[in-house]
C-alpha cells in the first residue's frame, strides 16, 4: 500500500516536474531565508545571557534630563551603593575602552580593545577562563588578562600565564589569566583587561572621589531574593539617588539613575551617550523578525496554493480510489503522508541552502553565527513548520476532496463548479502580495532614508579628511610635530581637535552666561579645537572670528548658532558676551553655523568650542588624488618623531559611515528578503496561472477555433489576477505606510513618506506579477488549438 502511495506521489511530482520544482524550491528558499533570519534574531536576543548571574545583573545609567542620558556613572558610586544598600550584593566598574601599545619579543601592536576593571571582574561575569586562577587574576596592579586571540597573537600559545608584555614601551605587565575568546553575543567586546589599581592618580581615568565625574561603567548584582518588578527596581534606584544627593549639590544632584538589565543592554541602549559599543536595535530585530515571519507565510502560502491546485488535478484519483474501496481514513493517510513527505524534503533542502548561505549571510550581518541543528529550539521550529505546512497543504485533498461523492468528482463538477477553494486560494494570493508590497515599500523607504543621511548637509565637507591621533612620544613633541606637518604642503591644511564631530557624547551643565536659568538641565557638549578647525572642515562662520594664533585665546569661546539661540541672542549679539565653562571666565569670540556632531537619529543642539592647547588628534584635509602621498608624508613624520609606536590613521568619512552600520545592514537585509519574498510570490503566481491555463485548456482551444484573438485570450486569463492584485494593493498601502512612518519616526532628520513610494512599490509588484501571469497566458493563447481538442 505504501509502495502504491509512494509511486503515485513520485509520478505526480515527476509528471509535473516544473510545477513540483516551483513548489518545493519556493518552500525551501523561503524556509532557508527564515532560518537565517531567525538565527540572527536569536543571536541578537541572546546577548549576555551566558553570564551565570545575568538575571540579577544591571548596569547603572545616569540622566540629567530626558534628552541626555549616559551609560556612565561617577567612580565612587559603585562601592558606596553596594555597601549602603542591602539589595545590592556586588558591584563592578569598568573604564572607557582604552588604547595601549604592547610588545613582546619584537612583536608590537597598538591594542584598542581593552578595559580597566575592578578585581572581581572574573567572578562578577562568567567569561571562560582557560588558564590561570580567576580568583586572584586581577589582584595585583601589574597584571593583564588576555583573550585567547591576543595571547596567540603575541605568544603563539595560550599557555602563557606568568609571561610578560611591555606596555607602552615601558611598564612590564604579567599575564595572570587567559580567557576564551569573547562570545559574539557579549555586549562587552575586548582583547585584554587591566586592573583599575594600575591607573596612576594623574590619569583622567583615575578612580577619584569625584561624584560629578561620569567616567565609569558601573554594574550591580542585586539580591537573588529580590523579584525584579518595576516597583522593586525603582525602590533601589530611589535609594541610590537619595544616597547620591548626600555627596553632591546643584543641578548634578538631580541626576536620575536607572538600573538597566544586563540582557537589555544590547538591544535597548539607543540614546545613551558614551556607551561601550555599537549596539543592536530592538526595532531592527523586531522588523526583521517580522520580515522573517512574512517570508515564511509567503512561502507556506505558496506551497499550499500550488499543492492544492495540484491536488485538484487529482480529484479524479480520489474519486476512483473511493469507488474501488478506499475509505476516508485511508485517503487522508495517503494525502497527508504525501504532503508531510514533500514538506520534510523541502525542509531538508532548506537546511542545506541555509548552511551553504551562512558564510555569505554572516558577511552581510557582520557577525559569524552557526546553525546548531540539534538545539531544541531549532528542532521545535522545524517540526512546527513541517506540521503546519503539511497539514495545511495536505488537508485540502485529504479532507476536502475525499468528502465528496465520487461521482461528482469523476464528472469533474467539483473542479469546475465549486468555488469555495478558489476563493480561499485567491485570498492566499492577495495575502502574498500584500506582504510583498509591504517589503517593497520597506526597501524603498530604507534606501531613500540612507541616501538622505549620506547626502545630508552636515555643515562641513566630509570628504578627504584624514585623522591621526597623537600617541606616545608625540605628546611631548607636539610643536615639532605640528611644524613638520605644516612644512609639507601635502599635510599643511590640518587642524588639532580633541574629537571628531561624528558622535559627540558627554557634555557639561557647568557653563555660564548672563541670564542663565540656574536650574537649567541642558547638557552642552564641548569641543577643544584650534585656530584652523573652521577652515579645515569648511564650516561657516556666522559672526565674530575663529580662534587665532594671533590672540591669546585661552579664555575665548566659540559657540554654535543653536547655543546662541539658547542664550536668546542673534549670532552678532552673542559675540563679545561674557561666557564661562567650569568656572573659567572668558568671552565669546565667534559664532559658527550649526554643523552635525551627532548621528541622524538625534537632533543637533547647542555646542561650545574652546581653544585647544593640549592636543588630541590632527585632522588633515588631503588634496584630491594625493591621498597616498599625504599618508606617506604623515607616516614619515610620525615614524621619525615617534619610532616606538605603530602609525595609525583613519578617515572621517568612514567614521561617519560606521555610525549607520546597522541601518546599512538593515537596508541590505531588507532588500534581499524583499526580493526573495517577491520571487517566491511570483513562483506561486506562475504556478497558479499555469494551472488555471491548464484547467481552461479545452475552453481556450475551442475559443481559438471559434476565432478569438490572442489578446482576447490573454485578457480572459489575466483578468482575474489583476483584480486580486488591486485588492492586494488597496490592503497593502495603508499597512506599509503606517510601518514606514513608524520606522522613520526613529530619526530626527528624515525623508517624507510620499505617495510615490507606495505607488512605485505597487507598480513594481503589479508589473512583475503581470509579466509572470502574462507569460503563461500568452503561451496558452498561442498554442495549437487542435492539441487541446484532440482527445477527450
Amino acid at each position: 500500500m505504501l509502495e502504491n502511495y509512494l509511486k503515485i506521489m513520485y509520478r505526480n511530482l515527476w509528471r509535473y516536474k516544473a510545477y513540483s520544482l516551483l513548489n518545493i524550491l519556493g518552500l525551501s528558499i523561503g524556509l532557508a531565508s527564515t532560518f537565517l533570519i531567525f538565527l540572527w534574531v536569536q543571536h541578537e536576543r541572546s546577548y549576555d545571557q551566558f553570564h551565570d548571574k545575568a538575571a540579577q545583573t544591571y548596569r547603572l545609567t545616569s540622566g540629567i534630563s530626558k534628552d541626555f542620558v549616559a551609560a556612565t556613572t561617577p567612580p565612587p558610586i559603585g562601592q558606596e551603593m553596594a555597601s549602603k544598600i542591602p539589595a545590592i550584593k556586588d558591584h563592578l566598574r569598568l573604564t572607557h575602552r582604552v588604547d595601549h601599545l604592547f610588545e613582546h619579543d619584537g612583536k608590537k601592536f597598538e591594542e584598542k580593545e581593552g578595559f580597566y576593571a575592578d578585581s572581581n571582574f572574573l567572578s562578577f561575569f562568567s567569561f571562560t577562563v582557560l588558564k590561570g586562577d580567576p580568583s586572584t587574576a586581577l589582584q595585583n596592579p601589574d597584571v593583564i588578562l588576555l583573550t585567547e586571540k591576543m595571547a596567540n597573537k603575541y605568544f603563539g600559545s595560550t599557555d602563557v600565564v606568568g609571561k610578560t608584555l611591555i606596555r607602552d614601551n615601558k611598564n612590564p605587565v604579567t599575564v595572570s589569566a587567559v580567557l576564551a575568546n569573547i562570545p559574539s553575543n557579549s555586549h562587552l567586546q575586548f582583547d585584554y583587561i587591566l586592573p583599575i589599581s594600575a591607573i596612576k592618580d594623574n590619569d583622567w581615568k583615575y578612580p577619584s572621589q569625584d561624584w560629578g565625574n561620569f567616567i565609569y561603567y558601573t554594574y550591580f548584582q542585586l539580591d537573588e531574593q529580590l523579584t525584579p518588578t518595576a516597583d522593586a527596581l525603582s525602590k533601589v534606584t530611589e535609594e541610590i539617588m537619595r544616597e547620591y544627593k548626600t555627596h553632591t549639590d546643584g543641578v548634578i544632584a538631580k541626576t536620575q539613575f536607572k538600573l538597566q538589565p544586563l540582557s537589555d543592554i544590547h538591544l535597548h541602549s539607543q540614546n545613551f551617550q558614551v556607551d561601550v559599543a555599537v549596539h543592536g536595535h530592538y526595532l531592527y530585530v523586531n522588523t526583521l523578525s517580522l520580515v522573517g515571519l512574512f517570508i515564511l507565510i509567503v512561502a507556506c502560502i505558496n506551497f499550499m496554493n500550488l499543492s492544492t491546485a495540484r491536488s485538484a488535478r487529482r480529484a479524479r484519483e480520489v474519486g476512483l480510489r473511493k469507488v474501488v474501496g478506499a475509505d476516508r481514513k485511508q485517503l487522508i493517510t495517503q494525502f497527508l503522508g504525501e504532503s508531510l513527505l514533500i514538506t520534510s524534503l523541502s525542509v531538508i533542502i532548506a537546511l542545506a541552502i541555509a548552511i551553504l548561505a551562512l558564510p555569505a549571510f554572516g558577511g552581510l550581518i557582520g557577525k559569524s553565527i552557526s546553525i546548531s541543528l540539534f538545539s531544541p529550539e531549532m528542532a521545535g521550529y522545524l517540526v512546527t513548520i513541517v506540521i503546519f505546512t503539511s497539514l495545511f497543504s495536505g488537508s485540502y485533498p485529504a479532507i476536502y476532496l475525499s468528502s465528496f461523492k465520487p461521482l461528482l468528482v469523476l464528472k469533474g463538477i467539483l473542479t469546475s463548479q465549486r468555488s469555495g477553494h478558489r476563493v480561499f486560494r485567491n485570498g492566499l494570493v492577495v495575502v502574498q502580495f500584500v506582504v510583498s508590497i509591504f517589503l517593497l515599500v520597506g526597501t524603498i523607504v530604507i534606501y531613500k532614508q540612507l541616501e538622505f543621511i549620506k547626502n545630508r548637509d552636515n555643515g562641513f565637507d566630509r570628504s578627504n579628511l584624514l585623522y591621526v591621533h597623537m600617541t606616545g612620544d608625540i605628546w611631548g613633541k607636539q610643536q615639532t610635530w605640528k611644524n613638520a606637518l605644516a612644512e609639507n604642503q601635502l599635510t599643511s591644511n590640518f587642524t588639532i581637535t580633541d574629537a571628531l564631530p561624528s558622535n559627540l557624547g558627554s557634555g557639561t551643565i557647568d557653563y555660564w552666561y548672563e541670564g542663565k536659568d540656574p536650574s537649567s538641565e541642558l547638557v552642552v557638549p564641548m569641543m577643544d579645537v584650534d585656530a584652523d578647525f573652521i577652515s579645515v572642515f569648511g564650516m561657516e562662520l556666522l559672526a565674530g572670528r575663529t580662534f587665532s594664533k594671533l590672540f591669546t585665546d585661552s579664555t575665548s569661546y566659540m559657540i554654535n548658532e543653536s547655543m546662541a539661540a539658547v542664550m536668546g541672542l542673534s549670532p552678532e549679539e552673542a559675540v563679545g558676551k561674557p561666557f564661562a565653562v567650569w568656572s573659567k571666565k572668558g568671552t565669546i569670540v565667534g559664532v559658527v553655523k550649526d554643523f552635525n556632531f551627532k548621528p541622524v537619529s538625534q537632533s543637533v543642539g547647542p555646542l561650545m568650542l574652546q581653544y585647544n592647547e593640549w592636543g588630541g588628534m590632527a585632522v588633515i584635509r588631503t588634496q584630491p588624488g594625493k591621498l597616498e602621498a599625504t599618508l606617506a608624508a604623515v607616516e614619515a613624520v610620525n615614524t621619525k618623531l615617534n619610532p616606538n609606536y605603530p602609525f595609525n590613521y583613519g578617515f572621517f568619512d568612514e567614521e561617519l559611515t560606521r555610525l549607520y552600520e546597522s541601518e546599512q545592514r538593515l537596508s541590505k537585509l531588507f532588500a534581499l528578503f524583499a526580493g526573495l519574498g517577491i520571487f517566491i510570490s511570483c513562483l506561486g503566481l506562475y504556478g497558479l496561472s499555469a494551472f488555471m491555463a491548464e484547467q481552461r485548456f479545452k475552453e481556450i482551444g475551442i475559443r481559438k477555433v471559434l476565432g478569438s484573438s490572442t489578446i482576447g485570450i490573454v485578457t480572459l486569463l489575466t483578468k482575474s489576477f489583476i483584480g486580486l492584485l488591486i485588492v492586494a494593493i488597496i490592503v497593502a498601502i495603508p499597512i506599509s505606510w503606517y510601518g514606514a512612518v513608524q520606522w522613520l519616526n526613529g530619526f530626527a532628520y528624515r525623508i517624507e513618506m510620499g505617495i510615490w513610494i507606495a505607488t512605485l512599490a505597487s507598480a513594481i509588484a503589479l508589473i512583475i506579477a503581470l509579466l509572470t501571469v502574462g507569460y503563461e497566458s500568452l503561451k496558452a493563447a498561442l498554442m495549437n488549438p487542435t492539441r487541446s481538442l484532440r482527445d477527450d
Partner: protein
Amino acid sequence: MIELQHIFKWYNVGGTKTFVLKDINLRIEQGEFISIMGPSGSGKSTLLHILGNLDTPDEGSYLFLEEDVYALKSRKRAELFQSRVGFVFQSYHLIDELTVYENIETPLIYKNISSSERRAIVGDMLDRFGIVGKKDLFPNQLSGGQQQIVGIARALAGSPNLILADEPTGNLNSQQGEDVMKLFKQLNEEGVTIVQVTHSEKNAEYGNRIINLLDGQLKKD
C-alpha cells in the same frame, strides 16, 4: 439482493424539475444476470450509479442485502458496498498515474490482502484478458478498448459479489466483446450477480432478464 422502491431522480434545470428516473421499482435476486437497455439519455447510467452507491436518488428507498441503504450512516453505507461491488465505467476512469498492473491492483490494497496474493490475483487478471504485455503501460498509452479491458479487470480483481457494468463492451471489437460476455456468463454461473447496461441486443441475450428504460421509466416487456 437488491430492491429499489419508488426511486425518483431529477435535476433542476432552469427552475423546472427534469426527471431522469421516475418511480423505478426493481428487484434483483442473488445470482441474476440482468441487461439494462434503452435509448441514450434514458437514465441507464444514472440507475447503475444508484445501484452502486455512487449516486443517490432524490426520493425512494433502496434495500441492499436486506439493509435499508439510505437509513445507514455514510460510513456504514460505504462499508456495505465497498468490497462487494465491482464497477465498470462507461468512460473507463483509470488512474492516469498508475500503470495497468497498479490500476488493477488498487482495489486489493484497500482489502488487507498480502502482497504475494495480490500479485497472484493481478497476474491472473492480466492473463485472463490477454494484457500481460501491457502491464507496465500507463492508461494514456492504451487504446480506448484496451482501457476498457483494464477497467473490467480492475472491477473483477476484488472478486465482488455484484458487478455493475456500464456498456462494458462499447469500445471493444466483436471478438473481445464476446469474450467479455462469456467471462461474465461464467462468473454468473459461479454465483456473481451481474447488472450490465448495453446497447447491443446480442450482448443483452447473455443475461437472463432484460430491463428496458425509456425516459427514466421502466418498460415491462
